[in-house]
């Protein structure tokens, strides 16, 4: 019986999962365990850890914008792939419509750039 060509991907995935889970599990038993309160604190270069702000650590909303832009371009890329693969099979119209699409997304990109959404400081 021959396997589907997708099966080996799952196989390698399973092998890697088994190996890494084994390693992580083994780490609990292989090493020594010498309890020390200071060792279990968060590491802050040797000084006592600073008290965490109330409500847990929050972080800049800047990252949200990056993630959103990433999604926009990821989707654009996903549309570009089938277009690129069957580029020769598509008529010249295919080229024109992709130019329109890229330009449209580029408008959003230019807007974000112009407003300073791509600046980090």
């Amino acid at each position, binding site marked *: 019986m021959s396997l589907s*060509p997708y099966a080996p991907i799952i196989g390698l995935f399973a092998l890697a999962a088994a190996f890494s889970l084994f390693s992580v599990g083994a780490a609990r038993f292989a090493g020594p365990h010498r309890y020390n309160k200071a060792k279990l604190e968060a590491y802050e270069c*040797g000084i006592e850890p600073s008290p965490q702000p109330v409500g847990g650590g*929050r972080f800049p909303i800047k990252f949200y914008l990056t993630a959103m832009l990433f999604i926009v371009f990821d*989707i654009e890329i996903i549309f570009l792939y*089938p277009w690129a693969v*069957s580029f020769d099979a598509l008529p010249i119209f295919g080229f024109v*419509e992709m130019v329109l699409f890229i330009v449209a997304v580029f408008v959003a990109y230019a807007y974000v750039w112009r*407003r300073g959404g791509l600046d980090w400081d």
Partner: protein
Amino acid sequence: MTTSTVLAAAGDVSGGEEITFWILAPLALIGAIGMVAARNAVHSALWLVLTMLCLGVFYVLQAGPFIGMVQIIVYTGAIMMLFLFVLMLVGRDASDSLIETLRGQRVAAIVLGLGFAGLVGGALYRAMDGTTAVGLEQANAEGNVQGIARLLFTKYVFAFELTSALLITAAVGAMVLAHIERRKQDKVDQPSTMRARFAPGNYPGPKPGPGVFATSSSVATPARLPDGRLTERSTPDILPVRELTAQETSLKGTDQ
């Protein structure tokens, strides 16, 4: 063509497909239930990742490798990353409270949910029972990706172009919601920082570090000036100033 070997599996369910389905379907369900049941918001997002991943593999199983991979890349990769980011914006330990605001609401929700699932499942089963799927071979004749491209860029070209409008909306929306507008003249560059530092009234030297005259090495403890006063200048602005308790200043027992 290998696509044809994969596709051949679509008409009659092959052994491999069945095994994979019966392993992954419970996993997908566990993920979905875990997503609802998990109290920690990030855990809940991670359960959803599991479900999405299983769905991606299901697409591949059903001879739609392109859409399966897209599911993994876009949903599991991108959207979930955004989701995680948003959750982290809320705070690290944001957990749901388990207090019922309406009495009996949880039981009612479970009963109704199960009933709805039963209705949909039953209807689907009745509708699909005995029907055989046709047309997959034709649809994937020139390859899955090529087939999608042919349809997407000819028949569904308006939908495709409209997607760009959706993407623009998403980008602009994110900009409006999350961007803090800063004009060019408000930006503090290095020379102006230096000018401000040496401006009259500002002490240009380094800030006092905790340690020399301090009783603790914590950054949250203010340093002591030579005259014995505490100075606020040594603590970062975001940290609340605090005095250490006697217990905290005592030896930790780490020096044995």
